[in-house]
């Protein structure tokens, strides 16, 4: 069997990349994609643990299902906001959307 640690490292790397993306991207859409990446990494983590503890049970798989559902809902909402923002400013640049400041 492939060692568990491989999957964990994979998920960690994916999470880190996604994390970096959220912090460092200018486009709103790309930030959302990075969030998706983080969620995917989390899902992989769950499934890996579940499978390695007890191959017959599918607790982790169920959890992954939940994650996907939540991700879908959240992106729906987020895209709604981004679309609104785009219509107002003709640009999805988050750096420019800083009017709620001191």
């Amino acid at each position: 069997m492939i060692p568990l640690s491989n999957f964990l490292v994979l998920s960690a790397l994916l999470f880190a990349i996604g994390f970096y993306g959220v912090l460092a991207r200018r486009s709103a859409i790309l930030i959302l994609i990075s969030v998706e990446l983080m969620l995917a990494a989390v899902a992989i983590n769950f499934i890996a643990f579940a499978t390695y503890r007890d191959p017959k049970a599918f607790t982790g798989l169920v959890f992954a299902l939940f994650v996907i559902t939540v991700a879908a809902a959240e992106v729906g909402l987020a895209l709604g906001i981004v679309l609104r923002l785009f219509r107002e400013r003709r640009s999805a640049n988050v750096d420019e959307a800083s009017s709620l400041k001191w």
Partner: protein
Amino acid sequence: MDQAWILPAIPAAIFIVVALIGRYLPRQGDFLVILGGLTLVAIVFSMFPGFQAAFHEGHFAPGTTNVYSFDWVNIGQGFFIIPFSTYVDGITMVMLPVVTIVALMVMIYSVSYMHGEPRYFWYYAVLSLFVAAMLTLVIAGNLIQLYLAWEGVGLASFLLIGFYWERQSAAEAAKKAFITTRIGDVGLLIGIIMLWRSTGSFDIQTIIAAAKAGAFDHTYLTVAMIFLFCGAIGKSAQFPLHVWLPDAMEGPTPVSALIHAATMVVAGVYLVARFSPVYAEVLIARDVILYIGLITAVMAASMGLVASDIKRVLAYSTVSQLGFMFVALGTGAVTAAMFHLLTHAFFKALLFLGSGSVIHATHQQEVEHLGGLRKKMPWTTATFVIGSPALAGVPIFAGFWSKDEILAATLEDAPIWAYVMLAGTAILTAIYSTRVVLLTFFGEPKDHHAYDHAHESPWLILGPLVLLATLATVAGFLALDQVGQSLGFVGGIGQIVFLEHAHEFTHPEWLLASIATLGALAGIGTGIAFWHGDARRAVAAREWAPDLHALLVNRYYMDKLYQGIIDRVILGFAGVVAWFDKRIVNETGVDGGAQTIGYLGYRLKFLQTGRIPNYALGMAVGLVAIIVIAFGSQG
């Protein structure tokens, strides 16, 4: 006797009614107050048979209890109890007729005197309040009740002195009265607390019994009783807190008669008399009382000699006579003091109300504007001429009997020079009272406008005068056992009010009485010689010693002294406190606190950049911190 609490309850209820709705009642409610006064006199007189019977059975010797009480405040299972209790004995039975009779006279008199004055209903309401408080004071069985009533009469006095508060001098006088007596009251409170700490009780008879049994440390008790006397110094206008009483004449004249002659100012005498068994144990305190009384008597009589306002002369006279009472108490002669209280109340109230009659008729108070009124106001003159020798101590009249008793006690139990000073003061009393009578009623009128305006006063004013004059004439005979027995008592006043043993009194001591009479007559003669006609001799005397005259007119400069102390010490201290409040509490604390937070906000607001990646970074940093702390501490 058990329902003695009803006595203050009636005027208290009337006060509430008249104060709240008196404005709308017909005649503004004065009849209600008078009705209350009549009821009180009736109740007091109905108490006498029971009192006499109890005395015949021996119930009213000092030390017996006669108390009706329930606990009003009870903290800590009996550690701190404020009861409501009443105590009626010989001393009380002297005070009750005095208070109720003079109060009734004043109430009737005021119908005419205060007619048409603004706030008429309020005058009667506070009069009722005063009577309620005074009655509570004289039947109080415990010190807290007494203190409350003490403050109550002070309040009524303040309200009535300042009745014409539109006049600046009246408002100032009311403030002065209240603040000066308050200073004495602090001493009283300290004394009460000291007594409570030793005995655990506020009950007066308990404290007296404890003192007689020797339960107190001697020095402690002396100090406590001196503090108690401080309250009397304030309330009874003794030196050095006498300064408020002359100014209190700003109030309406009936008020001066009731409060500042007959009743409130004698509260101090009553207090000391009540505690006389305790004062007998601490003779140093009693000596203090004697000497302060003596100083006061002499000082006040000297100031009364030069005062130009009739009411002021009577005010100084009151202070002086109160001094006499305290001298008597200082020698342990409770009977003499209470007897003088009784007679003084009658003749002083008479004199005040008489002066009120003059003021009402001429709208003048200064003696310079009066004179020759006997032709225009015969009744007033007659009653005043009865009150004056009563004050001076001429035989037959009431003052002679009581003053003689005091002088006798002083001769027995005080240093001989004290007797001489007191006898001298008695002569001074005769002089100044004659002076007032001559300058007001005899001689030629000095202000013709006032003289023409003068007319005899209506019967509502004259009636009380006549009654008080009668009392001033006959009340003195109460000292005699024969008179007392014929009234149903065990004997004269010496058998009712006493400290250790009852006095028998069938005839005055002729030698002493003769000396006193000669002194009084000499005083009157001097008065006539000096102020007769155009008062040439008096004017000459004034020019012969102008500095002495100035000293007396300026009240020994004590008012200036006190004002100086207030201006420099008290207001100076107030300035310091005000500075502290303004600079430190307000600017540094309150304003500074607000400014600090404002400044912090001003600096920290730049965290709100509005940029999403910044916020995301913030969240990330926070998350990392939580993880580190949570898992690091598990470490």
